[in-house]
């Protein structure tokens, strides 16, 4: 193992610790905000926004997506398209199935 490589991993470890602290802080923020009993649309927006930030941190740094190969990004882009379509299905069917009738 070269010293450059070791220094690189040391830098990664520092990032992991920073991400860990941020995730803990965001978890506490999520719980505290839920105590305010905000109207459902606002509460859902905030909770999902915080969860998305947390999820992105896990994916980017722990799963190393921030520096992955193009093929993996392509696979995930395709997955994201189908995932959004899947979540949109209940929305488009909700108003008397207007779009899917």
């Amino acid at each position: 193992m070269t010293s450059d490589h070791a220094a690189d991993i040391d830098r990664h470890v520092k990032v992991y610790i920073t991400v860990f602290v941020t995730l803990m802080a965001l978890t506490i923020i999520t719980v505290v905000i839920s105590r305010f009993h905000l109207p459902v649309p606002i509460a859902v927006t905030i909770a999902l926004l915080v969860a998305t930030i947390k999820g992105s941190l896990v994916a980017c740094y722990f799963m190393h997506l921030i520096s992955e190969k193009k093929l993996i990004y392509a696979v995930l882009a395709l997955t994201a398209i189908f995932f959004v379509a899947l979540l949109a299905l209940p929305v488009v069917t909700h108003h008397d199935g207007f779009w899917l009738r």
Partner: protein
Amino acid sequence: MDIPYTVEVRPDTGLTNGKIGIWLFLASEVMLFGALFASYILIRTGAPSWPRGDTILNVPLATFNTIVLISSSVTMVMAWASLMRNRFGTFRLYMGATILLGGVFLVVKYFEYSHKFEAGLFPSTNNFLAIYFTLTGLHMLHVIGGMAVNAYFWGPGAKLWKTNPQWFTNRVEHSGLFWHFVDLVWIFLFPTLYLL
């Protein structure tokens, strides 16, 4: 015959076969949980009224479990980093901690489930509990699966470190990707079920 492209990357994909394999598997997992999240949205938006999660579920226990699972993600990535730094002993410690934290998560979940059953709350009781038990139950199966793989790499599977350390490091990275995914799913399950 040796398994191809376990250490060296395939020229056409720029990846090892294991890496692309685990990401394709995770893509299918996204769709599996996505289908259940879509079901949740459909059931919730179609219901005349929907209970707030914290009126039925135990938020302090779930918050504790969130902290446990996030911590286990950190120990998992540190286990991989230890192998990258050629420190097998440290890898064992971090991997052991990851498995242990997975165990803590399951024990807490056991108490949560037991409490619900004792109170007469079952999946058949109402739609909220049906989707709660389905989503958390499936997630729990993933925790058990991840723990089994991690335990294999902590124990008998670690023999590979002596003969092919790079391959072993790659395998630990792949099991780590699965474990982080399990953490990621919980990050969304926690507010969705418990807080909203």
